[in-house]
């Protein structure tokens, strides 16, 4: 893990009207790391992800990519560097898996070419292989399970060929087996891609993340390795709910305590 920051935020903030949703945040996303953002609903997790993706323009502060301000990069330039998998997506997307993943190649496609190039198809194949979904390639998206859908959306993001992968709640609505598959996938990508993910699953964060950022009310409450952030005291402050550590160590496992 090199300490070279891929993305740097300086006093980054976002407001809706007068209301401060996020910030100020000073954060480094290091090249090759997996950074998980945890925090209660409305803490600003998705806002942070959308800012880092470049979908939102910051109200305050600035964002730097490899030392270069985001503002100097074009929309397409950002897309070649950052791939985003949103949590909220249209319910029925009338495409096949292959068509969806090919659309991940959009930042690399040429407008005046009727057909994508061989290298685009090769990237699609590699991405599907990487996530273990090659057998799904001809299937329509309508009719895939939640876990399969999440997997192919991640494949589309991989096909985009971007260095940074931003995943919003990748395990939302997934059963334990599929959560485990997504975690295994992220661990396989470790070091190869930089990953920024928001999640409500603390044990998932503990399993996949090199560092965890605890957000509350738009501010960074804690930042550090899973063992530093996913502690009972920090979690209490973050979520205002009691947690119990059932297994300590580098990657702690916590459960929600039921006694008040």
């Amino acid at each position: 893990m090199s300490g070279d920051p891929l993305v740097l935020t300086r006093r980054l903030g976002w407001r809706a009207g007068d209301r401060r949703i996020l910030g100020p945040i000073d954060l480094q996303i290091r090249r090759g790391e997996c950074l998980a953002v945890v925090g209660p609903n409305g803490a600003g997790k998705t806002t942070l992800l959308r800012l880092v993706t470049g979908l939102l323009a910051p109200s305050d502060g600035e964002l730097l990519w490899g030392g270069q301000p985001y503002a100097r990069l074009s929309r397409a330039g950002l897309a070649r560097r950052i791939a985003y998998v949103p949590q909220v997506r249209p319910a029925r997307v009338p495409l096949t898996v292959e068509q969806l993943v090919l659309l991940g190649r959009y930042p690399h496609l040429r407008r005046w070419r009727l057909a994508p190039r061989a290298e685009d198809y090769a990237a699609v194949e590699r991405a599907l292989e990487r996530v273990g979904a090659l057998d799904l390639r001809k299937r329509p998206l309508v009719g895939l399970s939640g876990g399969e859908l999440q997997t192919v959306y991640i494949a589309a993001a991989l096909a985009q060929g971007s260095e940074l992968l931003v995943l919003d709640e990748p395990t939302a609505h997934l059963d334990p087996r599929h959560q485990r598959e997504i975690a295994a996938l992220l661990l396989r990508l470790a070091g190869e891609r930089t990953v920024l993910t928001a999640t409500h699953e603390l044990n998932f964060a503990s399993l996949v993340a090199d560092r965890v950022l605890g957000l509350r009310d738009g501010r960074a409450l804690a930042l550090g390795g899973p063992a530093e952030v996913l502690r009972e005291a920090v979690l209490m402050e973050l979520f205002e709910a009691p947690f119990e550590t059932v297994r300590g160590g580098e990657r702690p496992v916590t459960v929600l305590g039921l006694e008040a």
Partner: protein
Amino acid sequence: MRRPTAVVWLLAAGWLAVILVAPLLGSQPLDLAALAAGDETSGAIFWQLRLPRVLLAVLAGGVLAVSGLAFQTLFRNPLAEPYTLGVAGGAALGAVLALQLVGGAGFFVVAGAAFAGALAVSAVILGLASTRHGLETGTLLLAGIAISLSCSALILFVQYLADFTRTFRMVRWMMGGLAVVGYGELLWLTPWVVLAAGMVLVHRWELNLLLTGEELAASRGVDLMRLRLLVLGATSLAVGALVAVAGPIGFVGLIVPHILRRWVGHDHLHLVPACLFGGGAFLAICDLVARTVMAPAELPVGVLTALLGGPFFLWLLVLGRQR
């Protein structure tokens, strides 16, 4: 050959067949032998009346279908098309105002007014779609209905003020008809059709991406506002150009893309040519029916497409509810 490509070629073949056969049919059947022998009456009917009319129908149907396709994808709304969103109504209002206010208004005055009307309504819709709840199916359609009703009311008002001959001209034109003589209208309409279809085709990747949602499209580098401006602008201009010639013809843009998606899938690379050919053939056949079913009287083709389109709209609404 893959299925979508094959279907597009089949549609092209059907389109060509319609262009070749439809001019021969009508209230007065044409004798091929007489036509080939250079019979003057047959020749005049074929070359001056029927062929331009069929060609206008295929152009109009094609551009209406392509516009409907673009509207449905841009607003991610299965019921959007120039007619339901009021763009055709805006063009019609512009044209009617020109007919009333500019004494003996020439074609280009009417066309310019139709452009202005179509673009004005598009701008309103675009502004609405950029608001928080603007893209929800209900909001956009209700706005379209409100715009259409306002335009209709204003058109009625203008007609009320107009004298008898002008009123008749307006009413007849409002019904949507393709009764043209000669090729002037075709020359006028063709570049707009090419512009609209070309603009949609060039943006096929962006439109395909929009199927996966705006958030994902934007994150991949699609400039949504620019896309909407260019595609909506070009298709609205083409609809305005068509309305100036043929009046508002409804529901082609609704029916044709929906049927074609079942045949060629959702890739706009295939959908654009499919809509051009399929929509063209569809409207030419509708027009053939309209001019023969009550022969020698002619039904305006807009009446026929509306008769087909109303129930189709309801069917889509019910189908949408079931999902």
